[in-house]
């Protein structure tokens, strides 16, 4: 139940009917409203999870409990291949974009240099640029690069997992920078001075002091990059080549034909994975 503060204007107006600190009309309506918002957010997800266990092959009616769809999913080589591709792309792009993003955040937070202001604006651009624009740009760019490579070496390249990974790195870096910079802003630089004073060179200062203390921020940035990569659709669709599609694209292809509980099952698994990642990051941050 939500208790309203005694002095809020709404509760003050109707204080005649209800005694102070007790449930008021404004409190009640706030409670009801909150419940409705949460229902709006979570009912579809809950239904999705439930219907991944139904026996009904169209996944729209409850006709009994079964694990069949999960079993079928694990025996579906296309789905498993796409899932594996997705994990590989997400892992590689997370590692690379976290390293580059952290270095960029350090440079922008610590140093004054020519072009810093321009960089400041440009680094956040990929966050606001419509993803479809980003995808078209990356596609066109990869085509040009492939052309150049073909002319120079005669090698004919095609879009593959590497092109998707590069695309994911390109948009993840900005997000990593944003998150890591926040933790750098809260970092007390006097600790670095203290370390230098105690004989630490810049290598030791970074690895013994700065890195452990901004690690929660780096993990946060990495997790964001990982989840963004996991569920990215547009760039993945544009940049993956034949036979190397990623899970969201594969799911979309299947849904176009029919919604089956198998799709519900893979969605549920993806949901579990994201929740596990968030829980992990919370756990890691609480430990320090």
């Amino acid at each position, binding site marked *: 139940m939500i208790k309203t503060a005694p002095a809020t204007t709404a509760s003050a107006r109707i204080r005649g009917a209800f005694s102070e600190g007790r449930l008021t009309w404004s409190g009640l309506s706030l409670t009801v409203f909150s419940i409705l918002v949460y229902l709006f957010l979570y009912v579809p997800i809950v239904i999705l999870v439930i219907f991944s266990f139904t026996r009904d092959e169209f996944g729209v009616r409850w006709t009994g409990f079964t694990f069949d769809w999960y079993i079928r999913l694990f025996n579906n080589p296309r789905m498993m291949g796409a899932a594996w591709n997705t994990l590989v792309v997400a892992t590689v792009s997370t590692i690379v974009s976290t390293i580059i993003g952290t270095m960029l955040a350090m440079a922008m937070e610590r140093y004054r240099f020519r072009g810093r202001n321009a960089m400041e604006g440009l680094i956040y651009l990929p966050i606001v640029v419509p993803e479809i624009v980003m995808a078209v740009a990356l596609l066109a760019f990869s085509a040009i690069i492939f052309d150049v490579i073909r002319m120079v070496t005669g090698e004919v390249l095609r879009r593959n997992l590497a092109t998707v990974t590069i695309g994911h790195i390109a948009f993840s870096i900005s997000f990593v920078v944003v998150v890591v910079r926040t933790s750098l802003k809260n970092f007390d630089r006097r600790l670095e001075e203290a370390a*230098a004073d*105690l004989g630490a060179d810049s290598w030791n200062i970074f690895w013994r002091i700065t890195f452990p*203390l901004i690690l929660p921020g780096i993990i946060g940035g990495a997790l964001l990059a990982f989840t963004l990569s996991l569920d990215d659709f547009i760039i993945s669709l544009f940049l993956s080549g034949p036979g190397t599609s990623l899970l969201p694209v594969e799911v979309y292809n299947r849904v176009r034909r029919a919604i089956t509980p198998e799709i519900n099952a893979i969605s549920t698994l993806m949901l579990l994975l994201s929740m596990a990642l968030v829980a992990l990051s919370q756990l890691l941050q609480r430990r320090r």
Partner: protein
Amino acid sequence: MSDSIAIELRDVVKRFGDVVAVDHVNLQIRDGEFFSMLGPSGCGKTSTLRMIAGFELPTAGSILIHGREMGITPPHMRPVNTVFQSYALFPHMTVAQNIAFGLEMRKTPKDEIARRVKEALELVRLSGLEERRPRQLSGGQQQRVALARALVNHPEVLLLDEPLGALDQKLRKEMQLELKSLQARVGITFVFVTHDQEEALTMSDRIAVMNKGKLLQVGTPTEIYERPNCRFVADFIGETNFIDGVVIGRDGNYTVLETPEGLRFRGLAVRPLSDGTQVTYSIRPEKVRLLAPNGELPPNGLAGTVMTVNYIGSDTRITVRINDRRTIDVWEQNTRSTLDRDEYWQPGEAAVIVCPPDNALVLSE
């Protein structure tokens, strides 16, 4: 205390943009000395300390530590350690790890690290708290860890940047005495930055008073208090009565000045002053004597009226009006109880103040 020089500053200047933070400072700090740098905030004392530590480089001039020119030597290569105002303890390390950090950086063998960390903790009386994290410690304990973390490295000089600033009054007094005795035991040169004059007087062998980037006076606490060389130092250290006037001549050892309304005062001048020089006469309230009038004025005496009488326990602070523009503060030690109203000063009472010229100073700017 030997006579060799631990730290020497030669004509050091530090500018931040247009601001001159440290203005041509020359200074020698002796080996084994407890040396304080005292001044209001923004006077350049912390900048000076940071230049000795290597966090800032002088704009001009040079800094020598035990005769070695520091130049652009980075902080981690300098034979000094710092205790920071905020302590700057590493929050992700235990007390023992914090203290061991400096030794690890210098590749000290593990068993020696363990031994020295243990010794350092004993030195600051924190044994048993090895595994605590900084945030689990009180302010005073954090302060001791910061001290141990610096001292464990046996630095040639220990720099302390207002290390007691964050402590409450009582703890502060305790730590002052503890720091002083610690310094005597370890025999390391301490350079101590503070804005608290009482703290500087209590702890230091010598004090440097700074204002607006300039070094005004260097001396023992007694010299600084009893023989300030300018108006700022007299004002900043302790309390004093100031009276402005011009020099009108000499009387033996004393310089005589006259106020615009014709009062004459005698005092010691720090340097020879020619007649007509604008000066400030300074006498500390506890040096002024207050007598009951008995018809004639004694030498260096002035007639006045008691205005206010404030009893503060150890002494009583009396303000005496000597003419319609001037008052003089007198502090009398309460060697007797002031409860007996007949024996003590009452507001409105006539009184005579005596300003002994040996305890009064004539200061030029």
